[in-house]
């Protein structure tokens, strides 16, 4: 019999545009 995989936890991800925004604000913060 095939072993049923364990349920995995869905990792929520920001969109590419949201990642861009986060990245820009991080760059602005760093000197």
């Amino acid at each position: 019999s095939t072993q049923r995989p364990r349920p995995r936890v869905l990792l929520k991800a920001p969109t590419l545009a949201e990642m861009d925004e986060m990245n820009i604000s991080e760059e602005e913060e760093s000197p």
Partner: protein
Amino acid sequence: RPVNIPRKEKDFQGMLEYKKDDELKLIKNLILELKPRGVAVNLIPGLPAYILFMCVRHADYINDDQRVRSLLTSTINGIKKILKKRSDDFEIVSFWLSNTCRFLHCLKQYSGEEAFMKHNTPRQNDHCLRNFDLAEYRQVISDLAIQIYQQLTKVMENVLQPMIVSGMLEHETIQGVSGLKPTGLRKRTSSVADEGTYTLDSIVRQLNNFHSTMCQHGMDPELIKQIVKQMFYIIGSVTLNNLLLRKDMCSWSKGMQIRYNVSQLEEWLRDKNLQTSGAKETLEPLIQAAQLLQVKKKTDEDAEAICSMCSALTTAQIVKVLNLYTPVNEFEERVTASFIRTIQVRLQNRKDSPQLLMDAKHIFPVTFPFNPSSLALESIQIPSSMNLGFLLRV
């Protein structure tokens, strides 16, 4: 002193362990400072993607969601950063498009979702992610791949743009045709291109260069087909648009030269086994315009033949070519106004766009068909030249 006993592949589980603090170093050495021409990287196409995935697997294995998130975010940002820095470098953009796609395929192949496991070996199935469903990150990485594809298209366009008019329209290679200039436009004939002039050979060499680079990077064959189709569309649309704007390009002999050039491009497609890419079809408007320059344009029968032949040209384009058509010699007549009117009447039921020029900036929608790999993760070794000695094979 510890004795270094080489471990057998079967002892490895195809994961790479790293210290949390080494994540920045990983991105720096593997993404930001990696040279695609390095021997190591060419040994296994997609090696950076496999390394990143093996790191993701370990973070998943130890059930550390923060680490998985952090690594995926840093990877995506690292790829975006290098592509911003080297935005017009075909080699870099092609390399990261290939690797981003391979990373995406790995995330699917080892997702544990049955649809993506069909071609896996039992060992590969053992290597599926245990704790996390990364479907949302796959979407982000797929979006990133689309962005990189669009950037690659722009880079190709910038490289090809200065070659197209010269190589496809102006430069003449067919012996005996060069002398047949439209009346009043005769010029010195020369079989050798002037220095700095692009020829069809320059275009073909450039296509070879793009193609071999993509193959070296292990780009998915289906993706190469889409890129080649996009390249051919750029060549065809820029050539046709210039033909439609230049009277000196609308002659019987130019029609002959264009058909010859197109046949060389088609031969290139056959040579690279890319006939099913749809690239040839993108040249259809140009092929028909070249035929239009060569057919008889006098009788009602000629008009009927032209209307059925020029299905890929708009009425505006057909009429423009006929208006611009310049006889090769004094024995040939210009296209009469009544003939052009006949054509217009015949085509008035066509519901085509009134636009004269093709949209040379059009980008076809891209897809990344799933392409699983037979490579066994546990067999992957990282060459020391990659400066990733801080990664521990697990």
